[in-house]
């Protein structure tokens, strides 16, 4: 039984069709890497799963919550999938702790006390328990991204979408974020990540999806995709052609 079911999803921006019928089933606990050139539609696909983009055709269902453009459906969907962004997007007017506490309190009506306990636990989980009272502009990029992960986790999602979450980081800060993601994967969190970190994808992911021109061009376990690419496009992308 899959957790996320993506069926014949199509999406255009104006005349430009960026998703041309995507099918993808993701099981609970699975870790998926989506790779491909920029413009291949990988980020758009990820954003559709969270309802940040609408779809023109097809369907996306996450644990029974169907993607639909109205606020009720979107809310139900977003309670099941969290998202981490390339640019962190922490709320700059709130401390790290308050960033993590906000949504449980506002959306789930959790008491301040409970939310604070949860926030401290989630910040501990990403190794930032001591930064509870720090504001985002007092944190490094890697720390900000870890707070963003803690913030998403505090909503207890069934799956996390990671949209190039290390692309905006200085090289020496990438590993601290990837370590957190790896730990999540080991704990059984369902993860879908758009990434350029091929080594990480190879190490951690169960399946790799290669997207090309709005389609799933190749899909399989990392050993297959990386060591035995079938299509010339993937070979070229991996630089082994």
């Amino acid at each position, binding site marked *: 039984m899959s957790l996320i079911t993506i069926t014949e999803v199509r999406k255009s921006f104006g005349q430009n069709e960026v998703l041309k019928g995507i099918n993808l089933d993701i099981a609970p606990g699975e870790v998926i890497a989506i790779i491909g050139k920029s413009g291949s539609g990988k980020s758009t696909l990820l954003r559709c799963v969270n309802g940040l983009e609408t779809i023109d055709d097809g369907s996306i269902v996450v644990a029974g919550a169907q993607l639909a453009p109205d606020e009720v459906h979107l809310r139900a969907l*977003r309670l099941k999938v969290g*998202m981490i962004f390339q640019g962190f997007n922490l709320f*700059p007017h709130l401390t790290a702790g308050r960033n993590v506490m906000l949504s449980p309190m506002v959306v789930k009506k959790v008491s301040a006390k409970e939310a604070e306990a949860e926030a401290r636990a989630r910040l501990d989980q990403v190794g930032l328990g001591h930064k509870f009272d720090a504001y985002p502009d007092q944190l490094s990029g890697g720390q900000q991204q870890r707070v*963003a992960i803690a913030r*998403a986790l505090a909503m207890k999602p069934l799956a996390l979408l990671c949209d190039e979450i290390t692309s905006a980081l200085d090289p020496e800060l990438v590993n601290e974020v990837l370590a957190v993601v790896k730990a999540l994967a080991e704990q059984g969190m369902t993860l879908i990540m758009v990434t350029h970190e091929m080594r990480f994808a190879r190490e951690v992911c169960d399946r790799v999806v290669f997207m090309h021109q709005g389609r799933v061009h190749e899909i399989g376990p990392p050993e297959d995709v990386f060591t035995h690419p079938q299509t010339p496009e993937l070979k070229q992308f991996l630089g082994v052609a």
Partner: protein
Amino acid sequence: MTAFSTWDIVSNLLLAARWTVLLSLLAFVVGGVVGLVVLYARIARKAWLRRAAGLYIELFQGTPLLMQLFLIFFGLPLMGLDVSPWAAAFVSLTLWSSAFLAEIWRGCVESIPKGQWEASSSLAMSFVEQLRYVILPQSMRIAVPPTVGFSVQVVKGTALTSIIGFVELSKAATIITNATFEPFTVYGFAALIYFALCWPLSKSSQILERKLNVAHHHH
């Protein structure tokens, strides 16, 4: 013929200035509340709400305040609604300032990066929750200097209400001039009183702007 001392002139102007202050305050505060509603409509998800709010703003920004005053003061009685100068002055200044404030604030809301909307969306917040907890707290900081700056326009705008017979500072100056035949002295003092009201406002707007630019920290 009665002689008017300088103190007679100044004290009468000051008494009338109370109405200028009261009218400015009311127009600014109530205009701010109405402006918030217009702002909400202006950035709402529903296209017809956005268009309606846009039309409202353009209507009040695109016509002189004096015409708005006339239309309310002379127009409403034609429809059988009798309005006093005071009511007409209050209503037109309030509507006028609400349109300007809504537009000023819309700019502040739109200066918040899109990522803030996306992050709060992905955390399952509704539109109103996003505004209340994420967007408005950040845009309010940006909005303070231009909002205080606009209050100067409101104070000066009240002078127009003298034309429909509302006795505030400008109208009082005209009445006193008619009795004393000393227009330069009287209007000079009136101008000084306006300046005393407006200068601290524009000065504090400047100071606030500098403060918010310097402050990188939010604490």
